[in-house]
């Protein structure tokens, strides 16, 4: 699978898409997440967190201010990173770079395309576009087949089947 087009009718559905991703992403996955302010990036990560650890994670908040928040309770560690404030920084803080390249943990980076150069070699790219007040179009690209289960798992939200 390289590209999947999904429709999310409301924020709850965005969380649900995240939850499904969270259940099937393998350890060591790096997810680059894009979308403008208010698109629902943090909602999606909240979902991923729930997918990693059902029932927990109510405490997931925006990492914009602290740059990275790590959650240790689930199936594996989740690092939630935000590049929003890192624009034009001279270099990426070491602990973030380490998280992004981890083989054990899952790392999701919001505003990832601000700094495309620091992505690891293998990534999943998710971008959320605003269609109207609630509706979002979610594009998932998995060029390295990190998570082949995605198309089947997210079938109910798919508007355009996977291109290979």
């Amino acid at each position, binding site marked *: 699978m390289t590209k999947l087009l999904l429709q999310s009718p409301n924020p709850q559905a965005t969380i649900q898409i995240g939850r499904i991703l969270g259940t099937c992403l393998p350890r060591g996955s790096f997810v680059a997440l894009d979308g403008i302010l208010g698109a629902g990036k943090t*909602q999606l990560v909240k979902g991923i967190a729930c997918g990693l650890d059902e029932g927990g994670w109510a405490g997931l908040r925006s990492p914009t*201010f602290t740059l990275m928040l790590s*959650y240790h309770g689930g199936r594996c560690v989740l690092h939630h990173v935000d590049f929003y404030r890192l624009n034009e920084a001279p270099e990426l803080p070491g602990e973030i770079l380490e998280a992004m390249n981890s083989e054990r943990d899952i790392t999701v980076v919001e505003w990832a395309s601000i700094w495309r150069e620091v992505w690891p070699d293998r990534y999943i790219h998710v971008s959320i576009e605003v269609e109207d007040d609630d509706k979002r179009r979610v594009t998932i690209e998995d060029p390295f087949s990190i998570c082949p289960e995605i198309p089947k798992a997210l079938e109910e939200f798919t508007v355009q089947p996977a291109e290979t």
Partner: protein
Amino acid sequence: MLILGIETSCDDTAVALVEDGWKIRAGARSSQEKMHAQYGGIVPEVACRVHLETLLPLLDKVRKEAGVELRDIDAIAATNQPGLVGSLYVGLSAAKALAWSLGKPLIAVDHIEAHIYAVHMAEKDLSYPHVSVVVSGGHTDIFISTGPTEHKLITRTLDDAAGECFDKVAALLGIGYPGGPAIQMTSLGGDRDAVPFPRGEGGPDGLQLSFSGLKTAVLNDLRKRGFVFEAEKNSGRMISARAPATPVPKSETRTLSVRLPLADIAASFQEAAVDILIRATLAATRKSRCKSVVLAGGVAANKRLREKMAAACKSQKNTRFAAAPLNLCTDNAEMVAGLGFHKLLSGQTASMDVDVLPNKDEKRLVAEKA
């Protein structure tokens, strides 16, 4: 007892000398706001370097202003949590070096607890317990406080911090950084009811706090006015509103290709944010039966929030309302030295191997889960 306070948890370098927990002998703060404004946010590596360059000259200045020698200081207090890792290290390491070389006790202070304590420095008759509302760029937490270092978390934002929401909405409106002062200034003369932004749900007990829905509502409002958004890669501001290529329908009273009613949007947004905070604060007050409410943190400097929360508290069983004085709202070292005094009195000193805890909240959440 003279305590030296050092605060470097984020982008402000601050040093202060405070006597007996409240009497400010001298204090100075060097803000990196201007430096980071060009990036639309804080750049950690830059912040670290500036802390390093600023801290010692600032210490010298404060010491001279107070007319004391280093040996006159009774203890050294520094923020060790939460905050940016590198920034915290600069302040804590300096404090350790001073404490070690002077042979004085070292005190590690929690930044959030210090913010709450700042209110006590101005209102000495304020007694515990009270509801504490800490609102800043990184935090929106409501606690029940029973002592200077005893705070029980009652509720916190589910997503964005209030200050972060101000920053991001200011970015959407293109009115600058930091968002708090920018929104406050822009909202002057604006109609608070112009746009009925949603206040979200308070949940069954009214304690639920969330700001991401409000942020999205501002985005949607701007889109309805015909603005389109684009993320600008590697530019100073990452997102900007752009007038559409085609003219806006005449039905819009103020056409946006001419001007966006910025004052109205800012005032309406600010009002909604304030209402969300007040709803949760009053709910916490009812739940805890506390007779006073304390407002602290950078966003506590917002005039409308202070004004409206004071009125809301008064109308709810005449609850006492105390906000941090304006000079102690944003990050400062006076509050660190002030709280340091109380920690020293109660024997809460730190050893030389005390570490920084950048996001201790998350560690605490996990600990509770386990």
